[in-house]
């Protein structure tokens, strides 16, 4: 059984006991425990079920590489699936539940899959489930889906109770990993004066070295760690962060890091996670190495663990994973585990060393402790189902004939170590195969390169393949100095600390145990514990021609589980290489992708959620609208009132009321969202002549002109009224949605084509509030408020003027988008609300009615005015809309001119704008198409036009529409049919698009 030892445990505080729950059971651990160590302390070795076969799964590892120990934790606002027990620190009240089983962890129906596993090899689903055809959707897929997935899904209405934040960081040197290598690299860089950040994903500094022991500069390594951390903390230019993981390395020295602030103390205030977006001059990856499992039959049974993890649990947490630990290895390091087990007072029945020559100094030490060592041997098979009961020992060189049976409850395995090269590789760092250590390690000559073509990532220590303590420190010291040097700091002369490395015998690669294991054993030798990929699966993939490592991965799902193959990838590709008869480096690795370990979606999103998901832009009158019952419509990041329904009034009724009030007396529109771009400079006129289809340079100060803007492809992209403020200055109105786009469009042309023209553009949309005062009584209201001459002669249509309204200085444009007498009044945003109130009050006697976007749309449609986004969709040219009058024939050039001369643009068959009047007065549905006879070559119904805007016109009391129709303007009076998706057909007569006040008398009074 696994249990808490009477002594030991560097990381735990035995004075502070912590209560938590596992599958409803109340259990105790200590502060400093991970969920994994605390479970082991409570004899909970089996912790879950695997993905495909629902095999019992136990804790294998002690860190981020753990594939099995994943739990649902929390409830409701704190619920989280797939929490890795080895990296979850326990806290009082933690609730953890095991996953992927039904009805319970011990008895799981899905485990029947394991019995059928022979029929379910890699990729079986590509070969089956095809008949009958409809069964995939209705039978097979639902079944597969139901059995897939690991953790429980949050409930549909669960809402995350936590907050998250983003940080920006700028450092000369960022060191990822707070083991001895990372600390030394940080120290070396810090002493050189570089601005340094060093981060460690766990709660403690020092990494593995403290567990593995050894001496640095003649003192225990623990002392070195404490002293170095203290030294770093004393340096002002160094920032230290624990519980922070380097998640991803991106182009140009961009680094993503993930800090877990409150996962271990959820009751404290503040954000749960913090995502750091860092620009680093140099990144030092001191991310250590991960031990590899060995592939033997039954290596997935709970109780089979990484040798280093067994050691970690004993030394770090004072927990023994079992009483009798068989160690199996191909290298010397695992002997450390045997020694640690023995020193903890537990038994090591045998060390099975696959190497005929056995180990070096550590092996001698083990033997001296009285441990039986078998060399040249392997494990033929592990006995047990939910817990290891023993092992069968065989010759490594053979086929698995059993030589001996040994009882045990833990198997501690080591297949050697693989440097953590993920972060090195994310942005293109290349790897070399190290024959001696049988691992990939960073190729210092092919680093990821930055914007200057320089390598910007420096691997250090074990992450660089320097696995010994002394060699690692030397390497890290050099990396830290180099990083400082390359970011312009003079490294100090201090020497690297000295540590003697134990003399270790060479590792011998063992990819399969025993070497000649037959089909039966290979089907029981696991590579990927979570996804249930076995040696036989990879061999099958190779046999079937899935030879690329990416094909094998995808065919077998090797390395695609939540650990992303941290334990399985190298073993899998060694098996693949063997099957293909090619060296491992030729097979290569799959691509390393961020993040290093999974990061929360909440952290990725950061603060920008709910109301502040995107900036909410408010006009100065926003609060008034809100208080007066506006029904909002999002328009870009703005919100505009769609209409202002009174209590009990439908939206349609409100719109009709607003239209009628405006047409008959007085309406007020908050037009502040309209884009306002100032274009200024001696070349402003010339510039606008290029941007607009019509001539702007001839516009006189004091006048307004409606203009059209096209893309280079000739399509109409925006429209609006341009006012010339003075000789050098124009104010261009754009559509609400177009302001930013058109601003950028102008900048793009100015910066890339006409950079030598003397023009500036400024987007002043938010600097001004704008109110349209509209209707037959508009002038009367303004006259009440002003001394200025507002008469038809003194202030004609399409002019603008500075007007003082009751002491507020305004600029008034006499323009109209409704066909009514209309003034658009512009004031600094700070005066907007005051002006609005003033106009409401002054207009009261005329029944001043605020109207929303829908009334605006209806009124412009009644007048046959086009709306960008309705009549246009990026495929429409001004000529289609009968806007020839706004296209200059005099100008040599303007954006879109040449495009509009292309054959398809001048094709007489282009659909043209017309008005449409339904025969029965009904409203044609939005987006309906007019059908023509027959079908095209692809069997689609022929069409001859479509509706672009369609409304019920309160003014006319009937449905009106605008549309683009084949030869439309030549077919006045003809009736065409629009079938609706509602099953009805709408017959409409082609008419002039101006439905109301055709001669423009109302707006010109």
């Amino acid at each position, binding site marked *: 059984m696994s249990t808490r030892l009477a002594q030991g445990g560097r990381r735990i505080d035995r004075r502070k006991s912590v209560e938590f729950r596992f599958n409803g059971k109340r259990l105790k651990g200590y502060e400093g425990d991970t969920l994994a160590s605390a479970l082991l302390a409570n004899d909970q070795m089996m912790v879950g079920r695997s*993905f495909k076969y629902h095999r019992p799964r136990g804790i294998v590892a002690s860190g981020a590489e753990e594939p099995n120990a994943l739990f649902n934790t929390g409830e409701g606002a*704190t619920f989280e*699936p*797939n929490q890795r027990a080895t990296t979850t620190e326990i806290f009082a009240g933690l609730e953890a539940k095991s996953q992927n089983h039904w009805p319970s962890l011990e008895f799981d129906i899905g485990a029947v899959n394991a019995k059928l596993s*022979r029929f379910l090899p890699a990729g079986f*689903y*590509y*070969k*089956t*489930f095809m*008949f009958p*055809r409809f069964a995939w*959707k209705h039978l097979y897929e639902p079944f*597969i*889906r139901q059995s897939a997935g*690991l*953790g*429980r*899904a*949050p409930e*549909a*209405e*669960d809402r*995350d109770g936590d907050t998250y934040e983003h940080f920006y960081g700028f450092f000369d040197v960022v060191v990822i990993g707070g083991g001895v290598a990372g600390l030394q690299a940080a120290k070396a860089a810090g002493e050189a004066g570089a601005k340094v950040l060093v981060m460690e994903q766990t709660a403690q500094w020092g990494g593995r070295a403290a567990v593995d022991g050894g001496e640095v500069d003649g003192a225990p390594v623990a002392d070195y760690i404490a002293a170095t951390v203290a030294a770093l903390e004393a340096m002002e230019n160094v920032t230290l962060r624990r519980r922070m993981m380097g998640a*991803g390395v991106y182009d140009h020295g*961009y680094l*993503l890091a993930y800090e877990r602030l409150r996962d271990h103390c959820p009751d404290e205030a503040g954000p749960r996670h913090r995502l750091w977006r860092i620009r680093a001059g140099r990144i030092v990856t001191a991310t250590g190495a991960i031990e590899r499992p060995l592939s033997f039959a039954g290596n997935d049974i709970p109780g089979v663990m990484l040798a280093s993890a067994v050691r970690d649990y004993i030394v770090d947490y004072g927990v023994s994973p079992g009483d009798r630990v068989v160690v199996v290895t191909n290298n010397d390091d695992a002997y450390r585990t045997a020694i640690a087990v023995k020193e903890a007072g537990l038994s090591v029945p045998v060390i099975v060393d696959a190497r005929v020559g056995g180990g070096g100094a550590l092996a001698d030490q083990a033997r001296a402790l009285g441990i039986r060592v078998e060399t040249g041997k392997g494990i033929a098979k592990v006995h047990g189902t939910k817990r290891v009961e023993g092992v069968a020992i065989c010759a490594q060189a053979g086929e698995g004939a059993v030589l001996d049976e040994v009882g045990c409850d833990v198997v501690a395995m080591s297949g050697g170590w693989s440097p953590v090269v993920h972060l090195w590789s994310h942005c293109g760092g290349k790897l070399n195969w190290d024959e001696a250590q049988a691992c990939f390690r960073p190729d210092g000559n092919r680093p990821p390169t930055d914007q200057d073509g320089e390598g910007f990532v420096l691997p250090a220590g074990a992450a660089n393949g320097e696995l010994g303590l002394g060699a690692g420190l030397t390497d890290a010291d050099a990396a830290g100095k180099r990083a400082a040097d390359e970011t312009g700091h003079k490294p100090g002369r201090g020497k690297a600390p000295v540590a003697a490395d134990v003399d270790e015998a060479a590792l011998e690669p063992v990819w399969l145990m025993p070497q000649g294991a037959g089909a039966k054993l290979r089907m029981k030798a696991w590579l990927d514990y979570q996804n249930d990929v076995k040696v*036989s699966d990879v061999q*099958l993939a190779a*046999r*079937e*021609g899935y*030879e690329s490592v990416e*094909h094998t991965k*995808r065919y077998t799902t090797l390395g695609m589980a*939540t650990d992303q193959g941290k334990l399985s990838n190298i073993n899998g590709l060694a098996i693949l290489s063997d099957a293909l008869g090619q060296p491992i480096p030729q097979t290569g690795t799959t*691509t390393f992708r*961020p993040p290093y370990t*999974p990061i*929360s*979606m909440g952290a990725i*999103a*950061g603060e920008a*959620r*709910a109301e502040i*998901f995107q900036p*909410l832009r408010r006009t100065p009158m926003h609060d008034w609208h809100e208080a007066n019952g506006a029904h909002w419509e*999002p*328009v870009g990041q703005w919100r505009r009132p769609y209409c202002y329904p009174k209590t009990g009034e439908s939206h349609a009724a409100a719109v009709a009321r607003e239209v009628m009030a405006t047409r008959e007396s007085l309406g007020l529109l908050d037009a502040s969202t309209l884009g306002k771009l100032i274009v200024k400079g001696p070349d402003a006129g010339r510039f606008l002549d290029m941007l607009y289809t019509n001539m702007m340079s001839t516009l006189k100060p004091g006048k307004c002109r409606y203009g059209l803007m096209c893309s280079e492809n000739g399509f109409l992209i925006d429209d609006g009224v341009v006012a010339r403020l003075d000789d050098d200055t124009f104010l261009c109105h754009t559509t609400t949605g177009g302001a930013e786009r058109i601003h950028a469009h102008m900048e793009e042309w100015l910066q890339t084509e006409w950079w030598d023209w003397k023009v500036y553009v400024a987007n002043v949309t938010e600097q001004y509030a704008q109110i349209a005062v509209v209707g037959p009584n508009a002038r009367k209201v303004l006259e009440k408020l002003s001394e200025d001459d507002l008469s038809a002669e003194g202030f004609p249509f399409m002019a603008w003027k500075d007007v003082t309204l009751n002491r507020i200085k305004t600029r008034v444009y006499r323009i109209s988008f409704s066909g009514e007498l209309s003034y658009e009044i512009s004031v600094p945003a700070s005066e907007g609300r005051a002006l609005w109130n003033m106009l409401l009050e002054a207009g009261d006697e005329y029944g001043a009615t605020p109207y929303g976007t829908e009334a605006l749309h209806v009124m412009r449609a009644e007048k046959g005015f086009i709306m960008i986004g309705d009549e246009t969709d990026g495929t429409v040219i001004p000529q289609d809309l009968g806007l020839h009058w706004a296209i200059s024939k005099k100008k040599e050039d303007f954006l879109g001119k040449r495009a509009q001369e*292309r054959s*398809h643009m001048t094709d007489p068959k282009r659909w043209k704008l017309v008005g449409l009047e339904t025969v029965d007065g009904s409203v044609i*549905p*939005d*987006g309906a198409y007019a*059908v023509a006879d027959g079908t*095209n070559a*692809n069997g*689609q*119904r022929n069409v001859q036009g479509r509706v672009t805007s369609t409304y019920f016109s309160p003014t006319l009391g009937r449905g009106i529409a605008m549309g683009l129709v084949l030869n439309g303007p030549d077919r006045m009076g003809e009736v065409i049919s629009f079938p609706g*998706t509602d099953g009805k057909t709408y017959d409409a007569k082609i008419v002039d698009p101006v439905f109301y006040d055709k001669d423009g008398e109302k707006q010109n009074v």
Partner: protein
Amino acid sequence: MRRYSAFAVAREAARYHTGWERAWRSPEPKKKYDVIIVGAGGHGLATAFYLGKNFGITNVAILEKGWLGGGNTGRNTTIIRSNYLQDPSAAIYEKARSLYETMSQDLNYNVMFSPRGVLMLAQTEHEVRGYQRTAHANMLQGVETEFVSPQRVKELVPIISLSGPRYPVLGGLWQARGGTGRHDAVAWGYARACSDMGMDIIQQCEVTAVRKEGGKVVGVDTTKGAIDCDKLGIVVAGHSGVLAEMAGFRLPIESVALQALVSEPIKPCMDIVVMANTVHGYMSQSDKGEMVIGGGADGYNNYTQRGSFHHIEETVRALIETFPMISRLKMLRQWGGIVDMTGDRSPILSKTPVENVFINCGWGTGGFKAIPGSGWGMAELMAKGQSSLTEEFGLNRFREGRFVDESVAAGVAH
């Protein structure tokens, strides 16, 4: 080719699966082929498949610089739908969708086409009108699609938040017969079928030059030597510009990174595909349980299959807004592919200025769904010189201004 079936699996189980044959051969290139297809992505393989199946042209080589299916075909988020706006698009995507329905049987390879339905959310009035237009167009194009109410949206996808404070859901365009497929399997299934017809799929074989004589193609140079051909099909997605340059013409294509990501796997909670174009994100749940997530393309041209993290942030943010319950899930992996974007967001399936060189590209962010239809049309174009499916997608449309603009319909064209 030995057929796949449950019986075959059972038979093989008895001998520990040692009897399976290769899914596709791995031949050395011949001196000459009738047709060479460059690029063993979905579109290249499907083109070859229908050349053989519909036109009996089987002396075909498909040359792939890496591993087959390793381009965008193996990196996409597998949304399959055909409710496009413009007639030519709806025609080719609907052809593709209908071919997906029988693809597993046609190829004897389970591509797991899952017609679970695709829903595109309308979150502004403008979007509502846009989708209503698409629904009307689709009705006349013979594409089954429907504009649905917010209540129906909630029924279809209970984890959605209809009343997100910024962009409440106003409805959606629902194509019940759209869905997803297993991307790798599509490539593998076609490869197996092509190989079975006698075609040579040659991996690790990069085309480095296009050889011409008198304005006509005669072959290609590759990292495995020179290979002759009568006709050449270039089907290389993000690298189309590079190949076109080799052949001596230019393309109106920009190559940008498009990224995607998956969460850790969880039990089923989302049965359909949802696209939220106003906020720029879409999501579905794979059969393994991962939430599969994507968004908009990066804003600058590049050839690295990475991309910038800002886009991931924007996408995830958009989806937490739409599906708040995913906030505590974790991102497992992110990746990118190089997508080939045209100005009108429609593909190019076309003859080229070089005689007997044909090009199929420009599928941009949304070509997985088109694979079988594209292959069908492209094969016809290559075999007969014309096809009603590809007619409107010729290169000359850019010169004439005859665009097939799909950006009209949706901000995100997956």
